C-alpha cells in the first residue's frame, strides 16, 4: 500500500500503462517537461521520451484528430485536454469521428483513444475552467464515459480505460487531485471499469453521485447519520454504460433517491437517471427522484461558485424533501 494523492495515482496509473504497453502514448498541451498544468504527467516524458509523451501544438481538435490517426496506425493515445471548457474545439473530432468510425467501418476499426478531462469547479478559477460537460459525451453513442472520484479508482480506472478497445472519455475531479488514500499499486484485482460501487451502505435513501460530488455526498451522509437518517451513497464511476442494476437494487430497498452532480440539472445526466429509475422502480418509489446540481446558468464567477455547486446542505435538503411525500 502506498499513500497517493488522486493526481499522483493518475500519474502512477499512466506510468504503469506505458510500461506495460509500448504503444501507449501521452499527448496534449504542456504534458512534457512541465508535466501538465496539474502535473498528472509529471516525469513521464523524462522516462519515456518525446516520441511517447508528446507536447502538441495548442489545438484541441488537432490533438484529438491526430490521436485518431495514431490509433489507426496501432497506437493507444491518451490525450489530455487541459481544462473541461477547452474540450469544445475538439468536440467535432470526438463526436463525428472518434465515436463513429467503428460503425462506419462495420467493425473493422477500433479506436482505443482515451480523452482525459479535468472537470468540475471549486478551485476559484476563471471562466471555462470549472465546467462539467459529461452529458454532451454520454449523449454520444460510440463513446464510453467514466468519472473517477478517489485515488484508488483513479489508479485502476485509467489503466482499464487505456486497455479498452473503445474510445473513453475520462473525467477527473480536479478539486480532488490533492485528496489522499492508500493505493495498492501491486494488485490488479480491480472493480470492473463500468461497475458502480456502493461507497456507503444505508437504508433510508439512495444518493447517486460521481466524480467530485462523491466526497460531498459522503459528508452529507455522515451528517444525516447524526440525525438518525441512513443514507446509501453510490459512486456511479461509469456514466456510459451505466450500471443500472446496482442503482435499482439500492433504490428498490430504500424507495428514495437523490441524484447529485455539478452540471446543470436541466437536461443533465441526472435526468436520465431519474427517468430510468422511475421506469424500473416505479412501485417501490416513495417519492420522485430528486436532483441536486448546478443551476441552469453558465458557470458563475468563482466568488459565488460555492452557491452554485451542490454542497452538503443542499444535498441534505433534497434528502429531507424525499421524506415529504
Amino acid at each position, binding site marked *: 500500500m502506498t499513500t497517493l494523492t488522486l493526481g499522483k495515482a493518475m500519474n502512477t496509473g499512466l506510468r504503469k500503462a506505458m510500461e506495460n504497453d509500448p504503444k501507449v*502514448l501521452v499527448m496534449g498541451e504542456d504534458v512534457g517537461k512541465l508535466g501538465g498544468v496539474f502535473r498528472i504527467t509529471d516525469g513521464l516524458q523524462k522516462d519515456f521520451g518525446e*516520441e*511517447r509523451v508528446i507536447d*502538441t*501544438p495548442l*489545438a484541441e*481538435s*488537432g490533438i*484529438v*484528430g*491526430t*490521436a*485518431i*490517426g*495514431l*490509433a*489507426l*496506425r*496501432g*497506437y493507444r493515445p491518451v490525450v489530455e485536454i487541459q481544462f473541461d471548457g477547452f474540450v469544445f*474545439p475538439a468536440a*467535432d*473530432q470526438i463526436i*463525428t*469521428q472518434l465515436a*463513429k*468510425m*467503428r*460503425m*462506419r*467501418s*462495420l*467493425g*473493422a*476499426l*477500433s479506436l482505443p483513444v482515451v480523452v482525459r478531462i479535468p472537470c468540475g469547479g471549486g478551485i476559484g478559477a476563471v471562466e471555462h475552467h470549472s465546467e462539467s460537460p459529461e452529458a454532451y459525451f454520454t449523449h454520444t*453513442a*460510440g463513446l*464510453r464515459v467514466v468519472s473517477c472520484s478517489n485515488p484508488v479508482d483513479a489508479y485502476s480506472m485509467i489503466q482499464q480505460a487505456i486497455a*479498452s*478497445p*473503445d474510445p473513453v472519455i475520462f473525467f477527473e475531479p480536479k478539486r480532488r487531485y490533492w485528496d489522499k488514500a492508500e493505493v495498492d499499486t501491486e494488485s490488479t484485482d480491480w472493480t470492473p471499469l463500468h461497475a458502480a460501487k456502493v461507497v456507503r451502505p444505508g437504508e433510508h435513501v439512495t444518493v447517486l453521485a460521481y466524480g467530485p460530488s462523491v466526497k460531498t455526498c459522503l459528508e452529507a451522509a455522515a451528517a444525516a447519520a447524526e440525525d438518525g437518517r441512513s443514507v446509501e451513497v453510490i459512486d456511479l464511476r461509469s456514466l*456510459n*454504460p*451505466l450500471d*443500472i442494476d446496482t442503482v435499482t437494487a439500492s433504490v428498490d430497498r430504500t424507495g428514495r433517491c437523490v441524484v447529485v452532480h455539478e452540471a446543470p440539472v436541466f437536461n443533465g445526466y441526472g435526468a436520465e437517471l431519474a427517468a430510468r429509475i422511475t421506469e424500473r422502480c416505479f412501485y417501490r418509489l416513495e417519492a420522485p427522484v430528486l436532483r441536486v446540481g448546478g443551476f441552469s446558468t453558465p458557470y458563475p464567477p468563482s466568488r459565488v461558485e460555492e452557491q452554485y455547486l451542490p454542497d452538503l446542505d443542499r444535498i441534505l435538503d433534497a434528502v429531507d424533501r424525499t421524506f415529504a411525500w
Partner: protein
Amino acid sequence: MTIDSVRGAPDTPGLAEPELVQLLTPEGERVEHPDYPLDLSAEDVRGLYRDLVITRKLDLEAVALTRQGELGLWASLLGQEAAQIGSARALGEHDMVFPTYREHGVAWCRGVDPLRLLGMFRGVNHGGWDPAEHRFHLYTIVIGSQTLHATGYAMGIQRDGVLGTPSAGATIAYFGDGATSQGDVHESFVFASVFNAPIVFFCQNNQWAISEPLERQSRIPLFKRAQGYGFPGIRVDGNDVFACLAVTRRALENARTGQGPTLVEAFTYRMGAHTTTDDPTRYRLKAEEEAWKLKDPIERVKAYLVRGDLADAAFFEAVDDEAKATAKDLRERCLVLPDPGPLTIFENVYAEDHPLMTEEQERFAAYLASFEEEAS
C-alpha cells in the same frame, strides 16, 4: 464605399496566377519540366488511359443510378480524373490514403471494389470497407477532418521507425479548395509541419465549393499557403495525369525519406454538379465549363497516344468495352445490394459488450416479433 471582398488589389505582388507544373498540354503534346522528369513506357500510358476512362464511366454510371433512384446521392468526380489517377498511381504499397467522399478514382487505383463506394450513397451502410485491406481509409464527409487523421497516422509511421527503409510509407490526405478554410486543415498543416510528418497534402482545387468560388476561400493561390507553414507547396495542372503522377511521386518520396510534408495543389475543375442534388446553373456560367472542357484530362492522353502511335483503334475500343462492362457489372450488383436488417442498427457501435446496446436491441427485436405474432 463598397468593400472589394472578392480579390486583393490586382497589382499586389504575388497575386498574379502562377505557373503550374505541366507535362502534357491540353493538345496532347509532351513537354518537359526541369524538376519533374518522367519516363513512362507506352504500356504505362495506356494503363493510365484505361484508369481514366474506366473511372469516368463508373462515375457516370453512379450518376445514372442516382437519377433512377437507386442511390440517394452521388458526388461526381467528372473532370478530376487525372488529378486522382495521377496521384494515386504514384502511391506505393506501404502508403496510406485518407480520402474525402469524391476519391472514386483513387479508390479504383487502390483496388477497392467500386461497389463498396456505393454503399453509403445507397444508404446500406456509412462506409463499410476495411481501410487496412487496400490502405485506403473510409470516405470522410465532414470537410477537412481526415487531414488530421492522416497527419496522426503519419506521426505513427514516424514512431514505427521505418522512414528511409524499404517498408517506409507515407500518407496522402485528399481534400478540396473549400476544405482549406477549415480549422482542421490548418491544424493538420501545423502538426505535420512541427513534427515533420511524412505526409502529402493533395488539394484538388476544382474551383468550386458547392456554389462558392475559390475567391470566397482564399486571396492567394492555395499552394502558397504552404510557405506560411514552412513546407513546400506546388501547383500542378490537375488535368494532366503525367504531371500529377510526377509531382505526387516526388512529394511521396520526400515524405518517405524523412523530408516532411508537401502541399500539392492540383488545379482542376469540377465539370459536374457538387452532388446530384446540386444545380450549378444557379451560380456559374456555361462559358466557364466550356473553357474547361477544352482542357479535358482524358482527351489529351488519347491525343498523345494517337500522335505517338502508341495505341491503335482496337486498343481504344477494348478500353471502352471494358469500361462499359465494368459499369454494367457495377449496376447489376448495386441493384441487388441487400438492405441491412433493422437489428443491425445496434451493431458495431462498440467493440466490447455494452448493456444499453443489448437492452435496446432485445427490446426492439421483441417489438418487431410482436407484429409477426399478430399476423400469424
